[in-house]
């Protein structure tokens, strides 16, 4: 973990609401795990004092590039879109606990919206170890379906469902998931981006005795474990515990998730 500046190589929109940014991190030597995040100064530190957490979309160890895929939501991400090629970006990271891969068997990734950014890095990691990867991507509209091609290109099998096509109900995703679990030798299931789908994944992991992990989100100040802004409640055994998303997470075993 360090604070560093990185030069922006590209920063462009990939669909109406999503942007992708690529940084040159050749000066930085660091191991980056899927599920970890960086805490980023998106704009003028005066008007926007708080950094924004973005999880690693792709870290290319050979080219030493670091990519983020982000939803343009409020002032911070809006300001990030104003940064241009050649500008410097200030980051702290890598931060937090990433995903862990199963020893064997295939992975099922269930993503909603920009949650796919986080799971994309996991899919890459798993594919680089030649594990089979199925990804269910859920989104509002077909245009909001992100990274389908990239995932397909690296050899993951992508299944898309959308609200517009009325294929994204929890029940539809459940039956699709159950089919994959039964037919594709899934040993681990991962999710990010939707509370309803997290609940589903929790149930599936329990029912089918799968390894399961969840990447969570929380509003953050420090990002490194000092301020307790990012508190969330998890279940350990039969006790409820308050933990910090930034250092104890953002990835937790799905069994620990408390999803009201």
């Amino acid at each position, binding site marked *: *973990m360090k604070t560093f500046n990185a030069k922006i190589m590209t920063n462009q929109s990939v669909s109406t609401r999503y942007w992708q940014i690529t940084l040159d991190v050749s000066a930085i030597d660091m191991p980056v795990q899927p599920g970890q995040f960086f805490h980023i100064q998106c704009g003028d530190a005066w008007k926007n*004092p708080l950094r924004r957490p973005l999880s690693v979309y792709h870290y290319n160890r050979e080219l030493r590039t670091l990519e983020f895929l982000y939803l343009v939501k409020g002032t911070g991400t809006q300001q990030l879109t104003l940064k241009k090629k050649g500008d410097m970006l200030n980051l702290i990271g890598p931060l937090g606990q990433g995903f862990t891969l199963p020893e064997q068997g295939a992975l099922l990734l269930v993503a909603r919206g920009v949650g796919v950014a986080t799971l994309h890095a996991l899919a890459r990691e798993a594919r680089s170890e030649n594990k089979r990867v199925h990804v269910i991507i859920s989104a509002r509209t077909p245009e909001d379906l992100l990274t389908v091609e990239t995932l397909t290109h690296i050899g993951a099998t992508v299944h898309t469902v959308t609200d517009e096509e009325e294929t994204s109900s929890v029940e539809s995703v459940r039956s699709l998931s159950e089919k994959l679990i039964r037919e594709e030798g899934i040993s681990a299931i991962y999710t990010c981006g939707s509370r309803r789908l997290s609940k589903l994944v929790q149930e599936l992991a329990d029912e089918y005795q799968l390894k399961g992990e969840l990447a969570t989100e929380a*509003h953050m*100040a420090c990002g*490194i*474990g*000092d*301020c*307790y*802004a990012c508190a969330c409640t998890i279940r350990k055994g039969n006790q409820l515990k308050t933990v910090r998303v930034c250092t104890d997470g953002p990835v937790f075993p799905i069994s620990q998730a408390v999803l009201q």
Partner: protein
Amino acid sequence: MTDLTVKISSLTLKNPIMPASGTFGSELAPLLDINRLGAIVPKSITLSERGGNQTPRVCETDGGMINSIGIQSKGIEHYIANILPSYQDFEPPLIASISGESIEEFENLAERLDREPSVAALELNISCPNLRDHGQAFGMSADTTYQLLGKVRAVTTKPLIAKLTPNVTRIQDIAEAAERGGADALTVANTFLAMAIDTESRKPRIGNVMGGLSGAAVKPLIVRFIYQVHQATNLPIIGSGGVMNGQDAIEMILAGASAVQVGTATFIQPNAMNTITDEITDYLVRHHISAVKDLIGQVNLD
């Protein structure tokens, strides 16, 4: 050689810059040279375990932030067993910030920490806007402040620093009450009770509805409070609120502060305290001032 040392009661600090409670932890070690701080101030500790407030606990405002952490703490025994030792290898003296829900709790906390040699001084957080209902705090009443200080004074010989709240009509009265009660120094001040509403969802942007405002936006108010308190008491003052750079720190020192805390700036840049210390040195060199303490309260009023 530029002399950065300042005194807070019997404590000599190697420089005036220290963290603001709640914004600092040993996790910063890879990003900040902790040994270059004037003092170490960990997060406020409570007697028993507390869970803290609802989320979201922070939100951003123009030039500042609102927090409503609400003192998440594992209790005093965990603090003594785990938090204090985690700082034992660092040089700066440790100021323990304590936060009670009653005067008795403050007494108990102070009594317990009086026996800890690694604690150099106590900061009494009588001003947290996030603990009790609707931002009420002990430090809003001069009487309560006087009583609280007196009780705590009776159980410890360690220097007592009362952290005042800015949410009052006359901070001078509270400062005098703290002085009479036995405070050795004053932190001026804690956060300002504040609120923000998301106009799209129409919900408060803080889970607990209200929280404490900190950051650059509040600096002109804190400078005024420091100036008023410096006129009303003889106690050393630790400024706290909106310091972003060395100039801000000098401004507070000119207004009457002997030392300065840095909170929100650390979220912006984790090494902000080191940079600010360097900028103070630069300022002194540029103005041919040999000791920073010569600037305390030296605002030029003619």
